[in-house]
C-alpha cells in the first residue's frame, strides 16, 4: 500500500482533528471515547514515572510536548506544575488546545522546525513520530527534538520495540531500535529503557533517553 504524501498526511490530520472527538482525534481511532480516556491515562502514568515525581512552583521543569494535538498531555503535565510548550502542525488542533487553555503555551510548528532560545528538561513526543512517513523528515524531527534537550535532561519518544522498521497501513511507519539508537547515540543520547504501553494489543511504548553529552 502506498504511503500518503506529506501534504496528504497533513490534510488528513487537520481533518481528523476537526471531525473526531477530543480524545479519538489524537488517540486511537478504533477506540471509543471512554477507552481512549483509559489509553490516555495509561500513557500519562508512564510519563509521570519518566518525567519524575518532583514538582516545584518556584523552579518548575520545562517540557516540550512535540505533536501535542489538542493538548491533552500538555494540559495534564501543566497541572502537575510543569511549564509546557506544545507544538503541532494542525491549526485545527491548536485552536482547540488554545480554547481549552490550562496553562501550556501552544505554537504551530513541525517537529523539525521548532526553534527555541531555551533548552528543555524533558522533550516528549507521544505517538507522533510513526506518523511521519518520510524517513528524511523523521530524521530531521528526531535530531531537532534531541537538540532541544539539555544536559542531563530526557527525551521520551513513542514507537515500537522491534529492531526493524515497518509500514502500517498508508499513514504509519513504525521504526525500531536499529533506526533510533544509532541516530540518537550519535546525538549524545543514552537509552535508559523502553516502557511498553501494555494497553490492549498496542505494540507501542516509550523510549526514554537521557542526554549525557
Amino acid at each position: 500500500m502506498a504511503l500518503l504524501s506529506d501534504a496528504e498526511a497533513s490534510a488528513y490530520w487537520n481533518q481528523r482533528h476537526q471531525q473526531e472527538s477530543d480524545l479519538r482525534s489524537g488517540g486511537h481511532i478504533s477506540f471509543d471515547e471512554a477507552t481512549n480516556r483509559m489509553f490516555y491515562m495509561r500513557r500519562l502514568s508512564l510519563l509521570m514515572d519518566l518525567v519524575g515525581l518532583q514538582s516545584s512552583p518556584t523552579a518548575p521543569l520545562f517540557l516540550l510536548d512535540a505533536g501535542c494535538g489538542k493538548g491533552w498531555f500538555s494540559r495534564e503535565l501543566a497541572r502537575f506544575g510543569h511549564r509546557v510548550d506544545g507544538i503541532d502542525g494542525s491549526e485545527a488542533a491548536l485552536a482547540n488546545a488554545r480554547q481549552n487553555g490550562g496553562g501550556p503555551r501552544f505554537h504551530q510548528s513541525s517537529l523539525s522546525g521548532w526553534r527555541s532560545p531555551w533548552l528543555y528538561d524533558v522533550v516528549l513526543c507521544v505517538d507522533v513520530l510513526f506518523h511521519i512517513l518520510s524517513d528524511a523528515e523523521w530524521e530531521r524531527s528526531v535530531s531537532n527534538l534531541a537538540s532541544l534537550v539539555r544536559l542531563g535532561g530526557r527525551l521520551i519518544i513513542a514507537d515500537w520495540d522491534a529492531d526493524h522498521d515497518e509500514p502500517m497501513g498508508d499513514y504509519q511507519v513504525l521504526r525500531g531500535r536499529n533506526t533510533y539508537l544509532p541516530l540518537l547515540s550519535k546525538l549524545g543520547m543514552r537509552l535508559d529503557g523502553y516502557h511498553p504501553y501494555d494497553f490492549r494489543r498496542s505494540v507501542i511504548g516509550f523510549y526514554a533517553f537521557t542526554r549525557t553529552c
Partner: protein
Amino acid sequence: MLIKEIPALVGEASTLVWAGDESRATEVLKALLDGQDRIRRVSYDPDDTAMFDPGTLLVALAGPDLDAGALAPALRRLPPGGWAVLLLGWPLDELPYHVLLEPLVDAKCQVLQAVPVDRANRHGVHGAVVAARVERLAPIRPYLNDSPISLDGAEPGLNTLLRLTGEYVFGDLTARPLRQQLADLKDRAEAQRERIRELEEAVRAGAAKAAGLDARHTAMQKSLTTAQERLAQVRSSTTFQVGHTIVQGARRPARALVSVPAGLFRAWRNRR
C-alpha cells in the same frame, strides 16, 4: 522536594555535622531528619582542623545571615568522597550563589544537584545544594529522578564537557537580554507601585479635605439653625409684636386708629 527527602539523595551517611547557626539546628534538623534514626549527630568544633570521618554528612544553613568565612573551613574538612548539604535560606530567585561558589570551589567540592524545597514557611529552607569533595569530576547527574547521587562512574568525557561549557555560554548569552527585560519590568512595576501609592495618598488627602469641609458645613448649618430659632423667638416675643404694631401704625396713620389698638390687644392676649 520535601526537606526530609534530601538526605536520601546522598545515600548512606552515618553521622551528621551541623556547621550552621546553632540556634536553628534543632528546628531544621528535626525537619531534615524526620523519621530517620540511622544518622547520628556529632558536635562540631569550628576551631578543630582535623578531617571529618568518612560517612560524615556536613549540613549548613546558608542564608542571609551566612558568614561565608565560617562555611569555608568546614567544607575544607570534608575527606574525598565526603558530602555536604547546604540548606538555602534565600528565596531561589534572590539566591546570591556567588557567596557559595567560592568556598565550594576552594574546598574542591563539586555541586552535584540543587533542588527547590517545599514549605519554606515551616523551616525557612527554600532550596538545597548537594555537593561532594572530589578529586576528579563526578558523572553528570540525571536529575529527574530521586535516586541517590553517585560519585562512581566514568569521569565526564570531552564531549560532555564541551556540551556543558557550550550550554553555559549560550545560556548566558540568551539570559542577558531576558535579565535586562526582567530588570526593566521590575523597574516599571516599582514605578507603577510608586504612582499607585501617590494616587492613594492623593485620594486620602482629598477625602480628608472633603471631611474637613463637611465638618465646617455641619457647623455652619448648626449655627444657621440656632440663628433661625433665635429669630423666630424674637419675632414671637411681645416686645417685637408691640413694636411692630406701632411701626406699622406710624407708616399708615389712616389705618392706625383701628390697627394699632387691635394689634396691641392681640399682643396683650398672646403675651409671653
